[in-house]
């Protein structure tokens, strides 16, 4: 309990929020809207898993929103050309991994700071996509929900996200590869002396995040009849917010995936809670920013106490 105090406090905040909603806005728990909200959150969760790894290894990637948009648009075009979903999903994952490898090569290979590299790739990919599509929607028609019924499709998407979360959470705790990520984030030099190759680990976390982003893009694209090439605008902030609120330390080496899940659900509850509790919705972004700062300040105060 004490060791995971940070994660438990987020889970506690989420619990308080859910109870408050149960008392003041029981309509929040109605079946179909709830299922739709969870389906909306699932792709973000998949990306947040990858982002958690990148942040634990002491890097950051703010280009995921643009990667997401390009993977979604390319996947959508292939679906529109009649490709089966089983073939399009691997293509999208490979494309995402390629984008991740580009970031990773510049960051791990050349030692450039990840924030600036991914700021540059964020704008480059986003503008390149706008240039190519001119903002036109891509009609995927019958491929919606992978051609399944809506309900089965929604449960497939939620289930996939949860399986990925559980698998990565297990691997981060039990597999050597997962411990390498923590080691590199906590102290790259010590990790190197212990025989780990920090630059390879960093490179692979970016590739992994890209691949998950490609998968998430397809999980999102099949939810509607048309793919919007402007999708994923501001996604990077939602993902990073969830990871940081969930207790992953921005200075690396600390945090776990279950905290990320709690953080993501907490942030995902804000917007519907505001609506149900009668607060005007345009406060959402400001509250989101305030919650990120609050989480960061809490970590800062704790570190200060620990140093004394």
């Amino acid at each position, binding site marked *: 309990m004490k060791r995971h105090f940070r994660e438990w406090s987020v889970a506690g905040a989420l619990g308080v929020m859910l109870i408050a909603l149960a008392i003041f806005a029981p309509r929040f728990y109605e079946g179909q809207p709830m299922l739709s909200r969870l389906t909306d959150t699932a792709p973000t969760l998949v990306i947040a898993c990858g982002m958690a790894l990148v942040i634990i290894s*002491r*890097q*950051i990637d703010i280009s995921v929103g643009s990667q997401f948009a390009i993977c979604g648009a390319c996947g959508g075009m292939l679906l529109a050309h009649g490709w089966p979903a089983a073939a399009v999903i691997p293509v999208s994952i490979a494309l995402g991994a390629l984008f991740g490898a580009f970031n990773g090569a*510049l*960051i*791990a290979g*050349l*030692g*450039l*700071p*990840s*924030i*600036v*590299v991914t*700021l*540059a*790739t*964020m*704008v*480059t990919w*986003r*503008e*390149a996509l*706008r*240039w190519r599509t001119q903002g036109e929607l891509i009609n995927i028609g019958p491929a919606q929900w992978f051609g399944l019924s809506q309900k089965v499709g929604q449960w497939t998407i939620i289930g996939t996200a949860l399986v990925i979360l559980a698998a990565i959470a297990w691997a981060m705790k039990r597999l050597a590869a997962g411990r390498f990520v923590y080691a590199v984030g906590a102290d*790259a*030099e010590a990790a*190197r002396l212990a025989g780990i190759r*920090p*630059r390879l680990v*960093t490179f692979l976390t970016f590739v992994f995040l890209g691949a998950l982003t490609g998968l998430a893009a397809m999980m999102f694209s099949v939810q509607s009849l048309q793919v919007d090439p402007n999708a994923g605008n501001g996604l990077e*902030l939602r993902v*990073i*917010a969830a990871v*940081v609120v969930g207790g992953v330390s*921005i*200075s*690396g080496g600390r945090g776990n995936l279950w905290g990320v899940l709690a953080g993501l659900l907490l942030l995902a509850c804000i917007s519907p809670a505001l609506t149900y509790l009668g607060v*005007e*919705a*345009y*406060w*959402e*972004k*400001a*509250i*989101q*920013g*305030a919650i*990120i*700062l609050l989480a*960061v*300040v809490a*970590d*800062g*105060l704790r*570190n*200060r106490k620990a140093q004394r």
Partner: protein
Amino acid sequence: MSASTHQSGGAKAVFRSHEFILFVVLVAEWIFFYFAGTSKNYSGATVGFGTLDAQFDIMRHSCEIGLLALVMTPVILTGGIDLSVGSVLGFSAIVFGKLWRDGHLPIDIAMLGALATGALAGGLNASLITWLRLPPLIVTLGTYSLFRGLAEAVAHDGDTFTNFPASFINLGNERWLGVPEQLPILAVVAIAVWLLVHRTTFGRSFRAIGFAPEGARYAGLPVERRLALAYVLAGTVAALAGIIYTARLGQAKADDGTGYELFAITAVVLGGTSIFGGTGSVHGTLLGVAAVAVLTDGLSLAHWPREAGGVLTGLLLILTLTASVLPKMLSNRRSHRQTGPSTPQPSPPSP
């Protein structure tokens, strides 16, 4: 962490030539667009890049990003970063519009209110970064979201402030003594920041903090106060940029200045300031601003789509960064081969 290798005699000479190379690139860009972006219209008059009006337009368009890049320079010199300047620009513009239209304040007082808002925003960044010693990256990422959200909340999602008096709109569109009216403002800020960074002890302490924050602290520098100065200055000037932006477009919207932080950072890094802190110059930043502005405006005058400017700016930033570390990496590898594996490989830096 990798800044320690920058301060050698040879590096200084390379650094000087960096600005010279940038100047050559700028001139080359200018000559290229002079031919690619200029044409004659039906009546035989010259239109496009080659006209004085087009040059003044480029200056007008680059004024806000120029202001942001100028004050981003001291921040990056200290090894920090400020991702919130674009959001502060938008928030101050909205506060300015709100004070003027709904608060019925005279336009000068509304301007002061906007500047105070910017200073407070910078003060919030500064206090979180200095008191709690939090990484500037994550603090300003949080305030990036917070200030954009506050702008949206104050503007009630889509409300725009318009119908400003003509005397105010002139600030963004008319000429004063033959030059665009905002140019003297940019010049004053540029000279002030240049003096601060290159001719005072403040500038030296910014560099010292960028090289080695702990070392600077042990040397007796008031590290917290110097950092606070850099971030408050950034917030205040971002608000000034918001006012000028409002005057140029004649309206204040909640999404004003979205993405401007990227252009400002690009201009600073392009201008030769190390993203790791410690080295850099204000005149380099000004050249960087000009290089980005001529590129994006030149492309649109040469009838390229607007998106091309964004793509090329991003690629330009990646290329500059790569070019700035490759020589060091190659020389490291060479000495590595000669002396055996005594020099440790650089590990990836933190964000």
